[in-house]
């Protein structure tokens, strides 16, 4: 296989990745016989009342690993299990946040772990049908998940009587077609319903009116992959990891200018210095970390001086950033912050769904402003425009977080690297390594 880059194997702080690296783990028989797979599903279906499964997840303190960090157990309890008619579990496997590859890592290493988590969640909230919305570019994870579902179906774990329990369970896949916005849960639902993926206004929330107008639980791949461990070991055992408010571990995909890019399972509360300098091996020989995005491209940047920031969500909020998707992008001092921000704004402008005016207009406006600055046509006016556009994109002016994210890129890079912006806009020069040659 492609070289496994990241955490695998049994280590004291590994929960999700402890079985990774087991040969043929993607086969049901190996998942079951070698690492005790599907024991949590058996326990959930045969020994525990659905409400107690949800309570166990609540006790664990697990928070959604997609980006928003909402309490998973609480989210499950929003679904009225006794409401008549179909209910759905929809799995967000539309991983598209720049710098984030952890869901792909999980799906390629242990697809059955995801299947098991999905089935447990469906039973807990009273759904019989789960849909996995998987991004269209994930060819290999799609194949592996398809095969895992087929194996589970052949074994009877998916079907009319899983583990002998009279409770039909089914999982089906729906492929995305290239739209970052589908990572936003209501846009994903629109897409699943065969529409242009434009976020819905809430309320109603998906727990009340989600996929095809029915009560729907939406969870991220990593969130659900964590559930079997919690059911096997208890929520309290999970809560012993991490911090009080951000319990457990999370997978952080570290990329960019590091020696050992990879997907590392990190106990929440560890520092970014540990993640970037130790796990990922630090910057290349002779280089220095200049800035990092701690939770995907949407998380406001932190400069090297803040490497000792802790990885839990509270510490990140205090540092005016966020844990986001767990994607850590590291940039060294040979790269220009203004160029990096320009690249990300091109991304947000391209991916805006066009529904909310501030985001539809603001993204392009910012890109054009960066274009002028990088063409040495900038002045104080351009800097002022960037800050105004950034403000216009933020603070709840858009239905979803895409606009805010674009604004945070501008805002946080200017906050920490104002001098680089002024070099470009006012003095028409770039004083940064590789960038200097192009300015």
């Amino acid at each position: 296989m492609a070289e496994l880059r990241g955490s695998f194997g049994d280590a004291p702080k590994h929960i999700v990745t402890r079985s990774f690296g087991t040969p043929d783990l993607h086969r049901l028989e190996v998942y079951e016989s070698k690492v005790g797979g599907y024991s949590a599903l058996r326990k959930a279906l045969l020994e525990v009342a659905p409400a107690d499964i949800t309570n166990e997840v609540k006790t664990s303190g697990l928070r959604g690993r997609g980006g928003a960090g909402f309490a998973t157990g609480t989210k499950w309890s929003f679904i009225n299990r006794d409401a008549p008619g179909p209910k759905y579990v929809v799995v967000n496997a539309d991983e598209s946040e720049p710098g984030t590859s952890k869901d792909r890592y999980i799906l390629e290493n242990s697809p059955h772990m995801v299947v098991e988590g999905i089935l447990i969640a469906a039973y807990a909230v009273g759904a019989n049908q789960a849909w996995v919305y998987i991004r269209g570019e994930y060819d290999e994870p799609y194949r592996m998940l398809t095969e895992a579902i087929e194996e589970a179906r052949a074994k009877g774990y998916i079907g009319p009587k899983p583990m002998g329990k009279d409770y039909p369970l089914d999982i089906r896949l729906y492929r995305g077609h290239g739209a970052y916005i589908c990572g936003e849960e209501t846009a994903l639902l629109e897409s699943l319903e065969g529409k242009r993926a434009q976020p819905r206004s809430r309320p109603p929330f998906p727990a009340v009116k989600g996929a095809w107008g029915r009560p729907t639980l939406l969870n991220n791949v990593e969130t659900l992959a964590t559930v079997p461990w919690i059911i096997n070991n208890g929520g309290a055992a999970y809560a012993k990891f991490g911090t009080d408010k951000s319990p457990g571990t999370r997978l952080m995909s570290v990329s960019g200018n590091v020696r050992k890019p990879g997907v590392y399972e990190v106990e929440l509360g560890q520092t970014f210095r540990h993640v970037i300098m130790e796990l990922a091996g630090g910057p290349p020989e002779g280089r220095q970390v200049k800035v990092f995005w701690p939770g995907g491209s949407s998380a406001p940047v932190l400069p090297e001086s803040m490497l000792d920031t802790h990885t839990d969500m509270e510490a990140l909020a205090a540092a005016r950033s966020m844990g986001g998707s767990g994607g850590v992008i590291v940039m060294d001092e040979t790269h220009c912050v203004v160029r990096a921000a320009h690249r990300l704004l091109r991304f947000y402008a391209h991916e805006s769904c066009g529904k909310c005016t501030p985001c539809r207009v603001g993204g392009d406006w910012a890109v054009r402003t960066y274009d002028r600055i990088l063409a040495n046509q900038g002045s104080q006016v351009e800097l002022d425009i960037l800050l105004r556009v950034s403000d216009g994109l933020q603070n709840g002016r858009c239905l979803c977080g895409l606009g805010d994210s674009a604004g945070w890129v501008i805002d946080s890079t200017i906050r920490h690297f104002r001098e680089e912006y002024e070099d470009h806009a006012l003095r028409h020069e770039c004083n940064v390594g590789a960038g200097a040659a192009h300015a």
Partner: protein
Amino acid sequence: MNSPAKSVLSSHLVEEIKELPAKYPQPRSAVMPALDLAQEELGYLTPEAMSEVAALLQLDPGYVEGVATFYTLFHLEPVGKHRFYVCTNLSCMLRGSNEIVDHVKHAIGVKEPGEISADGLFSYEEVECLGACEYAPMMRFDHRFHYDLTTEKIDRLVAEMRSPEPSSSPLTPTLSLEVEREKKPRAARKKKADG
């Protein structure tokens, strides 16, 4: 319904598309899977193909076109037989994706994204993050990811695709990101994925 005078889709595909709506809680969800099938057969979505899909799903042609134009994986113009989708987002950019893009253009002899090479074999696009950042710079080539890209790897891939007799293993292990974990024959798995 604007049903086109002459079908541009094969008869078995028409049957397949007609069966799709029943597979979803509401028939509209079939629109993307149906467009997928049409694109797979034709290479890209012509206005006629979109109209025909609309007629088969009993949807308005404008609605179907609206969906097709929203998502980047639907091609509305002809594309090369093989497509390079090179990630140029930040994680790959920091590890040299701009050089990779320049080299792909040079290797297949085109100037712009979407332009088809003279031999019809290739086209390329610059795409957003593909979620394999630990292997940057990376790309998707047709339906497969390629990791740790170098200009040499691009050259070898292009040469291999151009060679009149494709070798039995179309991509060498060093070249592809082939996931070798699987013990199953690749052919069997591919068949399933394609079918």
